[in-house]
């Protein structure tokens, strides 16, 4: 996917510039952009290392695990058909916590494990179970509380207060997550009625 987007951007750009007679800026634009990427990477380096360092403490001290355990009642409310000792629950909790803390790279492995566990108890292996639908919809509604990358980018572009967007971001995330859960719950009701409670 990204291959096509990448190629399309460059080709559309060059063709458009040639057609509109605006070629002289292209070479400089390309060179500037690649240099800017390096500047940005260096700035990001400090902020990201600060974040991964802090998160390592949270991980090693067992804080992330403790938070995941605290999530269990919420997870059971979202997935009422899962039993309390279901193998899927710890993976779902860890995935949610990692997403909340903005650890995208740490969220994917437990997320995939959660899907595997949900697939094991799925009656039709080609069709998403209601638990999978709920899990993915909640996941994709964005759960992230602190978007450290965005703050780093804002700092690089000389924002007067790079972190001022944290609280508005949390509010917006909350709204989209509540709507996502409501939607998934309504769809569950509708499909139960339609299919006699089988799925």
């Amino acid at each position: 996917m990204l291959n096509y987007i990448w190629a399309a951007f460059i080709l559309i750009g060059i063709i458009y510039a040639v057609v509109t007679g605006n070629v002289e800026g292209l070479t400089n634009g390309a060179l500037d952009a690649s240099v800017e990427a390096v500047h940005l990477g260096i700035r990001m380096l400090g902020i990201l290392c600060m974040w991964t360092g802090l998160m390592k403490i949270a991980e090693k001290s067992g804080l992330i695990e403790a938070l995941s355990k605290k999530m269990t009642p919420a997870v059971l409310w979202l997935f009422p058909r899962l039993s309390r000792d279901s193998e899927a629950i710890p993976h779902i909790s860890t995935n949610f916590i990692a997403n909340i803390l903005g650890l995208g790279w740490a969220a994917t492995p437990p997320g995939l494990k959660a899907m595997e566990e949900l697939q094991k108890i799925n009656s039709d292996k080609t069709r998403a179970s209601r638990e999978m639908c709920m899990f993915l919809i909640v996941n994709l509604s964005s759960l992230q509380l602190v978007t450290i990358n965005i703050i780093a980018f804002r700092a690089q572009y000389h924002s007067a207060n790079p972190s001022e967007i944290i609280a508005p971001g949390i509010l917006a995330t909350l709204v989209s997550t509540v709507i996502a859960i409501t939607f998934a719950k309504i769809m569950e009701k509708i499909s139960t009625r339609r299919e006699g409670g089988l799925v």
Partner: protein
Amino acid sequence: MILFFSNIMIPMLFVIIIAYGLLRRVKVYDVFVEGAKDGFATIFNIMPTFIGLMLSIGILRVSGALDAFTRLIAPLIAPTGFPEDAVPLTLMRTVSSSAATGLLLDVYGTHGPDSFVGRFVSVMMSSTETIFYTLSLYFLAVKITKTRYTLAGALLANLVGVIASLLITEWIFGR
């Protein structure tokens, strides 16, 4: 109040995480340094990606094609109050996280991160996800082909995230 919360969020995380670490007798500084190394590795791994993306978006920008696209859809978007310059980014956000990052930086570069559109895209990026990529990754992993209402739900959540970001940014920072 809301701004105060924004400003206190990261220091608060520092206090909670370090205090909890000390309580659990973790060698906090050593572990911090160990974790910071991961950050180093991450940045060096994404640098080439970054250069590639900024390059393609840089070309799209200097050619005038991005502006032309924005001008083209402006009449459709203007009545809704949605900032036109955020349209390419909002569309790309659902498809590719890295391409969206490139466009985000383009908005920061052109308008500044503290402009209305700069603040809006910052909030919007925090409350939306790369739905198409993530959905296919997760469903492919377990070979599910009938995805039922997940795409509709994800698209709805995304749309709500975008609208909420716009209204909240307007409400908190003004236009």
